[in-house]
C-alpha cells in the first residue's frame, strides 16, 4: 500500500467509515500485536490491549490533525493502554467501578503464542515506562524525540532510560 493512499484511508476513516479504518488497521495489525505481546507477556492480555487501543483510536480518530501521523498516534495509544493494563490488571478503560467488573476470562486463543521465557523474564525486569520505551524504539523503530513526544517526557529522559534498559538486558543479549 502506498503511503499516500494510507493517508487517504485515514482521512476517510475520520468521516466514520469503519471499513477504511479496518483497512488502515490491517496494515499495522502485526506490529501492534507484537508490541502488546512482548509488553504484557501473555497472548490473551495482548489481544485485550490491542482491541481496547483500536476502539479508542477509532472513537477519537476525527481529532487526529495530521493523517500522516496515524502510525505514531496509534502506537502511543497502544503503549498507554498496555502500561495501564500492567499497572491495573482488573481495570478497563471505561468508568465502571472495579468491583463491578468480572475477572477477565483468560481464554486460550488459537494463536497461543508462547514467547521465549528468557526474553520475557528479562523484559519483566524493566519498569513499565522503560518497557514502553524499549519496545517503541526496537519494534516501533521510533527516534527518541518521537518517543518523547508520544509519552510526554523529555527526550533526554528517553535516551537515558533506553540506555539503562539495554544495559539491564545485557546478559540475555550477549
Amino acid at each position, binding site marked *: *500500500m*502506498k503511503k*499516500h*493512499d494510507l493517508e*487517504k*484511508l485515514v*482521512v*476517510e476513516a*475520520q*468521516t*466514520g467509515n*469503519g*471499513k*477504511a*479504518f*479496518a*483497512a488502515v*488497521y*490491517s496494515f499495522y*495489525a*502485526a506490529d501492534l*500485536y*507484537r508490541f502488546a*505481546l512482548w509488553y504484557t507477556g501473555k*497472548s490473551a492480555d495482548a*489481544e485485550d490491549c*490491542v*482491541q481496547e487501543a*483500536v*476502539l479508542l483510536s*477509532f*472513537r*477519537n*480518530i*476525527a*481529532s487526529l490533525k495530521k493523517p500522516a501521523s496515524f502510525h505514531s498516534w496509534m502506537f502511543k495509544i497502544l503503549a498507554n493502554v498496555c502500561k495501564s493494563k500492567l499497572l491495573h490488571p482488573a481495570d478497563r478503560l471505561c468508568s465502571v467501578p472495579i468491583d463491578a467488573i468480572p475477572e477477565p476470562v483468560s481464554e486460550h*486463543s*488459537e*494463536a497461543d*503464542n508462547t*514467547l*521465549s521465557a528468557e*526474553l520475557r523474564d528479562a523484559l519483566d525486569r524493566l519498569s513499565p515506562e522503560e518497557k514502553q520505551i*524499549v*519496545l517503541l*524504539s*526496537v*519494534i516501533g523503530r521510533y*527516534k*527518541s*524525540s518521537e518517543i*518523547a513526544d508520544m509519552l510526554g517526557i*523529555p*527526550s533526554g529522559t528517553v*535516551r537515558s532510560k*533506553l540506555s539503562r534498559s*539495554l544495559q539491564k*538486558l545485557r546478559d540475555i*543479549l*550477549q
Partner: protein
Amino acid sequence: MKNNKLKKELSRKLLAEEIVLPESLSAENIEKLIREQGGIVNPKRKQSGKGKIIRLVASAAAVIVCVIALAAVLNVTTGDRALQKQNAVIAEKTQNSDYSKIESAVLAKYQDMVNSYRESNGLFDGFVSGSKDTAALPESAVGNTSSTNGSTAAGETDLLTEDDAAFSQTNVQVEGVDEGDIIKNDGRYLYFLHDNLIEIADCADPKNMKVVSQIQLTGSDGYTLYANEMYLTGSTLTVIANQMSERDYAYSAYAAYDCCVMPDYDTVIKVYDVSDKANPKMVYSQLVNGEYLSSRVVGGKLLCLTRYAIPYPELEKKNFEKNCEELKNSCVPEYSVNGGEMIKIASDRIKILDEKEPTSYVVTALIDLDDLTSEPKMNASLSDGYEIYCTNDTLFLASSEYAYWTASGEGKDYIEDDNGRKFTEATHIYQFAISDEGVFYKASATVGGVWLNQFSMDQYGDEFRIATSGSEYNGTRYSMVYVLDKNMKIRGYLGGIADGEEIYAARFMGKTLYLVTFYQTDPLFVIDLSDSKNPVLKGELKLPGFSSYLHPVGENLVVGIGVGGTMSGTDGSAKISLFDVSDPCNPKELDNYTVPDAWFDSDHRAFMTVDEDTFGVVMTNCSYNASYEYQESMSVILFDVTDEGIAVKGQYRTLQPEGDLLSYDCRGAFIGDTLFAVNGVGIAAYNMNSNEKLGEVRF
C-alpha cells in the same frame, strides 16, 4: 557503541519470534468490533455527491450535442463509419477521438474487481452481473483544436527596484527551471501564500512595510481550495490549488476491503495580473481533473501535472450495468478553461502505458503564461506517477511499485528491473519530451528500489541518473544508483550500498553522487559516475546524525542540513555539516553547527542562497518550559561558509502567533541587506549585518 549493538541484538531477538495474529485481531473482527462498539466522536463531514447526477446528465447531454453537431458538419449518421472517414478531410480541425481501447481496459479491470470481491465475500444478493460488453455509446467526437502558439513576446519584467539590490529567489534544483513555492520575491514586494490567502507586501522600506493587497482563494460550488504553491513570472502570479471533486473511487487494498471509496481532487490553476500590486486581477483560470502532483515553469510556460484516479464505483453498489456506464463516461480525465465546459483530453494525446492495471492517469497541462489567450496543451498518460524531475526540455516521471500479496491470493513475489534483477520494490520512470506542442511520451525504464525525492534524479548530458533504496528479492535492503542513456536503457548500475539502511539525502553534482544513508549513523557516500557504465564507490564518511538536504558550495565543499546525534542514533538536535569533498576517497566533516532540541526544515525551498558563501535555513526550536509544556518557535538562521568552517551570522525570529496556533509555513527572504523572516503571522525585517530588527508587519 555498546548500546548500539545491544539494540540490534534485541531487535533481532524480538522480531525473530514467529508470531501469529490471533483471529480476534483480524481486520474483519476488528471491523465488526468497531461497528458494534465504535461510536466515533465528531466525525468529519463527507463531501456529498449531490452534483454527480447533474454532471452525468450534463455530460451525456454534451456528448449527444457534440454528436449531433458533428453529424451535421459531416452529414453522416453516427453509425456510418465509412462516410465518416471520407468526410474527415473536410472537418480538418475536428478530429475524432477514439477512447474504445481505454474504455475496454477500464471496464475489464472493473469486472475483475467485482469478481474478486464477490469471491471473497461469498454470494452477494441483488448484484446484477454483466458481460464485458456494454451498450455502445455514440463515439465521443470532441474536437482537438490544434492551435498555433500565440505570440511569444517576453513578459514584462516589472521590477520596481530602484537600484540593483540582489534579492532572494526560490532554491531550484535545475537552473532555469522554476519551482513553485509559498513565497516569491520581485526585489521590492514579497508574495506569501498561507491558509488560502496570498499577501502582497511592499517591503521597500523595512521599517514601514505594508500589506498592499490580499488575494483570498476560494473554490467553486462552496468547496474549499487547498492552495499549494505559486509562481511569479514578470507581473503574473500563478497559484495552484487542490479542490475536492465530486468523484469517489473504490480503493482496493485487500480484496475484502474493495468497498472502500475515497474522494478524488481536481486541480485549480489561477493566474493573476499583479502589475498593479494593490489591485490584482484574475486573468485566467483552469480546472484539471486529478490531484495536484507537481509543476514547473520552463521557458515562460507552466507545466502542471495532476493525477486522476479512475472513479471505479464502490463495489457494494448494485446494478453492474449502470455502474459500467457511469464508469465509461468518466474514465477519461477532463479540464475546463475560464469556467467553461469540461473537455475530455483527446485520445491521440493519451498514451496508454498500463493497460492491464488502469488505475490512474497523469495529466500534463502546458500553459503559455505569456499568451493566456492561447489554448493549453493537454496530454495524459494512463499510468501512475508521484514525483518529477524536469529540465527545460525533458520531463521524467517516477512511479513506485511494491510486490505484495492480497488476501485473495493475487500478487507477485518480486518485480524485475530492466536487467532482470529482482526486487521487492521498484520504480518505473517515464520520459517525456516538452515542446511548444505539449508533453509527449518517449520512453520508460524500470529500476529497482524506490527514490527518496526529486534530488534522487538528475540529468547530466544525455544521461539520466537515479538513486534508490530497496530490498533484493530474498536478500537485504540497500541503496543503489542507476545510469540510463537517452533512450532509457540501463547503462550502469552500482548496488549494495549501505546494507540495511535507507537513503536520507541524495545530490548529484556533475560526475559525482553524494548519498546519505542512515540507520544509527550517517554514512556520507561519494560515488564517482565519470564512467557511466561503472559507477564506483569512492569514499565513505561515518558520522553521527544524518543530512536531509545537500548543497554544493564551490568545487570542494558540500553543506548538509539535517539532524545531529550520537553513534547510537539521533538526539533531537539540528545540525548543519560542512563536508570537504576535495578528495573523493576521503570525505571529511570540516565543521558542524549543532542546535539541541531543534530541527531544520528539510524542504529544499526553505534553503536560501544569499551569496556564494552565505546561506539561510529555517529552524524550529522545541523546548519544554518549567511545567513540561511543549513549545516551539521558528527562526531563520544565516551562516557563512569558508574553508575553515561554518560561521553563524545570526538568528532571526519570525513573529509569534497569539495563542496556541503555530504557523508552520515559514520562509526566509532578503532584499539587499535586509533579511525577512516570514510566516503566517507576518513579516519581521532585520538588518543582515547588524542583526538589528528593523520592523514588522502583521497579516
